[in-house]
């Protein structure tokens, strides 16, 4: 559906050159919701603008729906853009027009009759649930409502692709959820391909099938959202996941709890991670019975990502050290990742190791 080939974008000024995108290759499939995540300045905004050529790449090719946009004339490009909707962080509605006229904007001048435009606008407003606000002005709407109007407007010309540029970053968490649900909804109803950029893992994990992680103008990691969550490779991906899963709390607990600080010699504190149907709790009860050790959960977090549970537990094992080691071996053999954080009275992690441990 969308194909970026060796896309580079550099900004030149008198004294320096900024390479916003360094040779990006990306393939986004029809009908999927694709997320691009990265910190601000990573190049995500530039990348998404290269898809509809609001920013023309310095080099490289951009294909959307089989058409090479980078080879089109301005006029042909404008025609193609009608099939690529876009929504923005700050909604970008026209304040001098009411909701109806905002949504009608892209429909005018296309040979449609007044009634046709009217019907189309109302069916779009119905889709986004704002039929009763047709004659309100943007200044009278909440942020979430404004974004709904923007979505209706972006869908006016029946696009094949919807580009979302930090579309929920200016919204509160609840409104964010409702907008994400709406996006998911139209993705399914209209078989619309959605590209979404965000700096929040919470947002992409909610609705994206696949994601790409960007850093310094490059895609450092790309793949299925569940794979990325269960087995992140790049450091930056781990950071994003750590903040999304609140792993930082683990260390607060480990640092503060006097009980954990004064472990006896045989005790082990380990982080066990599991994906999919392996429910960690069941294994815990199993090993405590089978290996006759105590396993208590100090911290637990199970996230459902695209319906697949991804969990992390911090478990405190007490008992004979040899039995504990065998239990850990058993867990590992069952496909569960075990990382020993503390054993033999020695804290195994240091600040430098934290990045590794929080994966």
């Amino acid at each position, binding site marked *: 559906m969308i194909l970026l080939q060796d896309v580079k974008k550099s900004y030149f000024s008198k004294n320096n050159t900024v390479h916003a995108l360094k040779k990006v290759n990306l393939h986004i499939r029809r009908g999927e919701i694709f997320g691009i995540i990265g910190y601000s300045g990573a190049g995500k905004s530039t990348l998404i603008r290269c898809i*509809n050529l*609001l920013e023309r790449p310095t080099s490289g090719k951009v294909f959307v729906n089989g058409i090479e946009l980078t080879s089109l004339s301005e*006029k042909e490009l*404008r*025609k*193609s*853009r*009608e099939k*690529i*909707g*876009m929504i*923005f962080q*700050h909604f*970008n*509605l*026209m*304040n*001098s*027009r*009411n909701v109806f006229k905002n949504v009608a*904007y*892209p429909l*005018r*001048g296309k040979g449609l009759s007044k009634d046709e435009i009217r019907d189309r606008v109302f069916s779009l407003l119905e889709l986004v649930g704002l039929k009763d606000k047709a004659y309100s*002005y*943007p*200044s*009278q709407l909440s942020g979430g409502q404004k974004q709904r109007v*923007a979505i209706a*407007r*972006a869908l*006016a*010309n029946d696009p094949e692709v919807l*580009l979302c540029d930090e579309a929920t970053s200016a919204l509160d968490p609840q409104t964010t959820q409702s907008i994400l649900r709406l996006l998911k909804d139209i993705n399914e109803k209209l078989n619309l391909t959605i590209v979404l950029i965000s700096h929040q893992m919470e947002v992409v994990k909610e609705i994206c099938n696949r994601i790409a992680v960007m850093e310094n103008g490059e895609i450092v990691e790309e793949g299925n959202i569940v794979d990325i969550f269960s087995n992140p490779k790049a450091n930056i991906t781990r950071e994003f996941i750590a903040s999304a899963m609140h792993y930082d709390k683990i260390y607060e607990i480990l640092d503060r709890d006097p009980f954990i600080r004064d472990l006896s010699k045989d005790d082990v504190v380990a982080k066990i991670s599991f994906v999919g149907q392996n429910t960690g709790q069941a294994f815990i009860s199993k090993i405590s019975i089978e290996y006759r050790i105590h396993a208590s959960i100090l911290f637990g977090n199970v996230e459902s990502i695209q319906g697949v549970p991804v969990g992390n537990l911090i478990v405190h094992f007490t008992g004979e050290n040899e039995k504990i080691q065998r239990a850990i071996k058993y867990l590992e053999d069952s496909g569960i990742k075990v990382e020993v954080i503390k054993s033999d009275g020695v804290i195994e992690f240091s600040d430098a190791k934290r990045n590794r441990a929080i994966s």
Partner: protein
Amino acid sequence: MMELLNSLMPNVIELFPDMVKSLKETLIMVSVSGLVSAALGIPIGVTLVVTREGGILENKVVYTAVGKVINIFRSIPFVILLTAIIPITRFLVGTTIGIKGAMVPLIFGSTPAVSRQIESALLKVDPGVIEAAKSMGSSPLEIIFRVILIEGLPGIVYALTITTVSLIGFTAVAGTVGGGGLGDFAIRYGYQYFKTDVMIVTIIILLLLVNFVQTVGELLLKKLNH
């Protein structure tokens, strides 16, 4: 009543027909030169906005050239401009005195100001909205007429209100060199003949005029702002 007025401002009563004529001249000068300079200034302002760096029709040569010409006219004090362009005035309207003769310098004097005011008004149009229009496949012309001018309309009204008010001031200056209008009237009778009552009444009329323009502008603005 008439006696009271007569004793308070004898000269005003005496010159009343002249005063009405001058007021008419002022109104004609302000409205004609206002309309013409708006008709010229709005396109120039739009040109400046769209050709500047990052604009939808970025063009450094046009932007710099237009900007320079405007700055030249803006830097000449109006009194000097009045006399400096006498040859042009004569060529265009065949005379350099009266309201006809005053209108040419008025237009030359206020068009650059209008252009800059329009430019700054239109620059306030949210670039995000323009970007959104682009993403919907709008052409530059569509963006100018359906986005920039529409979204910038409150700013344009505000700018035109300000320039109309300053045009009223300009007409008074034009009056000093035989341009006609209330300025001419006040200078001639109020200043040169020391008829203070004429001066005061003229000032009151100008005050009302300026207030009227400002009020109309603000009412329009209120209607346009949502």
